[in-house]
């Protein structure tokens, strides 16, 4: 304890409604705390984080001349900030405060009241011992670079970029495909309004291209991120496109002139249902409207022995540059919005549905391309045999709500399938049956959309489909695909002959989501979705300050939800920028100069090169602006001459003593 003042601690234990008090005897904890050294006030209260709760702290500081405060409630990661503000409101330095986690680490994980109360008391004892050693500290304010990086050019990334750009901020939009647009660009129509996806998406795509505040880098990836909130240095890898997108006007003459007279390579935008040449424009509405050359297919790039007819065709424009090299560009931004999206479940993982084996078993996204007027058949739905389908079945929850594959609900497949079911009925008049577990139509206008599907004669059979086969047991099954399913409403097993089976494949985290997570120092949920800071209160923030998430990279969602999240992420970034700066936790390390022996062992340990050596004084020096407060150097100093604010050795020793207090 410090000698120059007597410690006067105020202690508060929160009931958190019943969350804590149901398991921990809060009155007993308060009574116990009142017996501890330095405690002047000890109270229990229903909701400490409420304004009366905070007011209680403020009043007590003034009335009882408190100089330390301890609150036992939820996790400091949730409300430490709230209580520090309350302490500051009472005129006390906010760092003369310590929080005890008796909700997440105690009441919520234990059932035995006596044991949970004893644990709470020990944790409280630790905090009360520790806080006596706290020193007043000053948070440093870091400036925020006003530029923002948006990673991913799907609808979420596009919306976030436009929102920020319209607010006057400079935005870098990085997309790994040659065009922005994401999955939405592949859709024909959108539910529940059935308006054309391209009509609502493409104006936004061109707005991105023409916006003076947006730097659009397609065919590019984030390679490296250094720095911290407000001050990130990002390295972007711009892959060689072999066409200068600022010179190319998208006239397609190079494509016509290519030595491959006939397109012969599967076109990923149409999922291989149409072909493209080595030089191509990803899809008609692509932004930027510029060709790109696939180096694995272009004869010139592979062998160097081509007539280069494309270059000839481009003539004076000189947009094609076969010597283009990959570039690494470095930019400075203050915040980052991650909108990297999802990938679709691979239906081949469920062999019983015959995907890849039967030509007329397809996924919802393939059907989407087939009914799209810009798709491989110009919007005409045909079986692989060329005939129009007469009976179509949709299997829902393929790779969703399944213990064998993914347990989560992909949220959009019910509505997506019903949309396609309506389109198929409208275009072909075929009989359409949807095989479902539960119909989930919880959005605005969604239930009505379900009703409309019923009215349009779409049939619904409740049951998870066991298999799709071409094994006919009766004449009407001959030449058809047969679905075997237990109809759980009727209570018997059905065999349903169909000529087209559509698998409603669910969403999965991107294959390289883990890599992205590492680059941005985020966390992932166990499933691999990027983890939000708080599921309710901070749904677009991450544990890394200044990094926000939007769209399906956080979890499956539909277009309105993705856009809402993108707007929220943009607003969070704007709030950060317009605040002008951010307070940083003053947990930096420092050298006690007189004790430092100059052994230099700390210098190589610092990952941020924050420690240097003063050759004249023969002492190490820590630059507090570079120190991030990990404390690795503190733990390793052989002479114990490095301290860390908020985590001093003595403070931790007191905490150890305290948690071992068994009453």
């Amino acid at each position, binding site marked *: 304890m410090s000698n120059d003042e007597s410690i006067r601690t105020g202690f508060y234990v929160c009931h958190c409604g019943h969350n804590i008090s149901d398991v921990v005897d809060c009155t007993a904890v308060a009574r116990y705390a009142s017996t501890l050294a330095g405690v002047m006030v000890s109270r229990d209260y229903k909701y400490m984080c409420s304004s009366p709760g905070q007011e209680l702290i403020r009043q007590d500081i003034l009335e009882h001349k408190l100089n330390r405060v301890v609150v036992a409630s939820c*996790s*400091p*990661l*949730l409300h430490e900030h709230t209580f520090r503000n309350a302490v500051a409101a009472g005129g006390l330095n906010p760092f003369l405060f310590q929080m005890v*986690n008796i*909700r*997440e*680490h*105690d009441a*919520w*994980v*234990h*059932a*035995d009241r006596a*044991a*949970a109360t*004893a*644990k709470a008391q*020990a*944790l409280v004892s*630790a905090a009360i011992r520790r806080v006596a050693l706290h020193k007043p500290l000053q948070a440093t304010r870091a400036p925020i670079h006003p530029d923002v990086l948006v990673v991913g050019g799907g609808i979420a990334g596009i919306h976030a970029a436009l929102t920020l750009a319209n607010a006057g901020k400079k935005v870098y939009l990085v997309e790994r495909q040659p065009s922005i647009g994401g999955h939405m660009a592949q859709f024909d129509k959108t539910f529940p309004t059935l308006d054309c996806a391209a009509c609502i998406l493409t104006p936004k795509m061109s707005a991105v291209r023409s916006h003076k505040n947006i730097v659009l880098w397609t065919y590019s990836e984030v390679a490296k991120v250094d720095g911290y909130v407000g001050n990130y240095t990002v390295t972007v890898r711009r892959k060689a496109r072999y066409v200068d997108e600022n010179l190319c006007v998208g006239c397609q003459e190079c494509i016509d002139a290519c030595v491959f007279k006939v397109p012969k390579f599967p076109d990923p935008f149409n999922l291989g249902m149409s072909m493209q040449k080595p030089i191509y424009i990803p899809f008609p509405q692509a932004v930027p409207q510029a060709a790109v050359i696939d180096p694995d297919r272009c004869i010139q790039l592979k062998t160097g022995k081509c007539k280069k007819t494309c270059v000839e065709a481009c003539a004076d424009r000189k947009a094609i540059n076969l010597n283009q090299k990959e570039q690494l560009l470095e930019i400075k931004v203050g915040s980052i919005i991650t909108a990297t999206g999802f990938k679709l479940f691979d239906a081949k993982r469920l062999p019983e549905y015959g995907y890849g084996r039967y030509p007329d078993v397809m996924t919802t996204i393939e059907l989407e391309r087939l009914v799209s007027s810009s798709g491989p058949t110009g919007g005409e739905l045909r079986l692989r045999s060329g005939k129009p389908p007469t009976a179509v079945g949709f299997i829902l929850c393929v790779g969703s709500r399944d213990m064998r594959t993914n347990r989560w609900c992909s949220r959009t497949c019910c509505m997506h399938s019903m949309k396609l079911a309506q389109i198929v009925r409208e275009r072909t008049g075929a009989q359409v049956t949807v095989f479902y577990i539960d119909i989930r139509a919880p959005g605005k206008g969604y239930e009505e959309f379900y009703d409309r599907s019923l009215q349009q004669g779409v049939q619904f059979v409740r049951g998870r489909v066991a298999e799709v086969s071409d094994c006919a047991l009766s004449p009407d099954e001959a030449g058809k695909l047969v679905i075997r399913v237990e109809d759980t409403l009727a209570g018997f097993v059905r065999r349903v002959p169909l000529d087209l089976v559509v698998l409603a494949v669910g969403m999965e985290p991107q294959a390289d989501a883990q890599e992205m997570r*590492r680059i941005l*120092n985020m*966390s*992932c*949920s*166990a499933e691999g979705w990027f*983890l939000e800071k708080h599921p309710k209160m901070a749904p677009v923030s991450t*544990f*890394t300050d200044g990094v926000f998430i939007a769209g399906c990279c956080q979890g499956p969602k539909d277009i309105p939800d993705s856009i809402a999240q993108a707007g929220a992420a943009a607003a969070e970034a704007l709030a950060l920028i317009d605040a002008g700066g951010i307070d940083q936790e003053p*947990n930096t390390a420092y050298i006690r100069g007189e004790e430092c022996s100059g052994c230099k062992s700390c210098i190589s*340990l610092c*990952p941020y090169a924050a420690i240097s050596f003063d050759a004249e004084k023969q002492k190490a020096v820590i630059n507090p602006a570079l120190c*991030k*407060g*990990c*404390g*690795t150097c*503190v*733990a*390793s100093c052989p002479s114990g001459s490095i301290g*860390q604010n908020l*985590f001093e*050795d003595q403070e*931790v*020793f007191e*905490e*150890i*003593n305290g*948690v*071992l207090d*068994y009453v």
Partner: protein
Amino acid sequence: MSDMNWQPRIVAFFCSWCTYTAADLAGVSRFRYAPNVRIIRLMCSGRIDPQFVLCALADGADGVLIGGCHPGDCHYAEGNFKTFRRYRMILRLLADMGVAGDRVRLEWISASEGERVKTVINEMVERIRALGPLDIPGRFAACDSEILESADAIRLPQCKETHDVVPEVVHG
């Protein structure tokens, strides 16, 4: 110490970014686990001074659990590698002192692995329960009284009158 009522006492040092957050998640998910572990939050597992572990054992802990981010995932780039190095050293140190290495455990638990917190804590409590109490404070006390007794035995024949001069026993 009466063995009937003995319960393992375990001090845990968790890094704020991964394992402490995972323990919060365990709470939010309402995973029930043994109440014997008391968690101390540090910014990084790299902050764990070997003294913290020794201090916890000397102050009466029967075991120490260290939790950090998975290798390669450290919020501070590489703090957990330093932790790992130190952990190996602590184990050697404890072995030299005759303390079973099982009493100190290092686990990498990411922020999303709430269930792992439950499993690791329950395993740790069971392991310590099987090892029995370490009770270093008790052993110190026993050692002190032993020294006092033998000091008496040595001194008595020599200086019968200066019985009050007892050599000071330093511990802790």
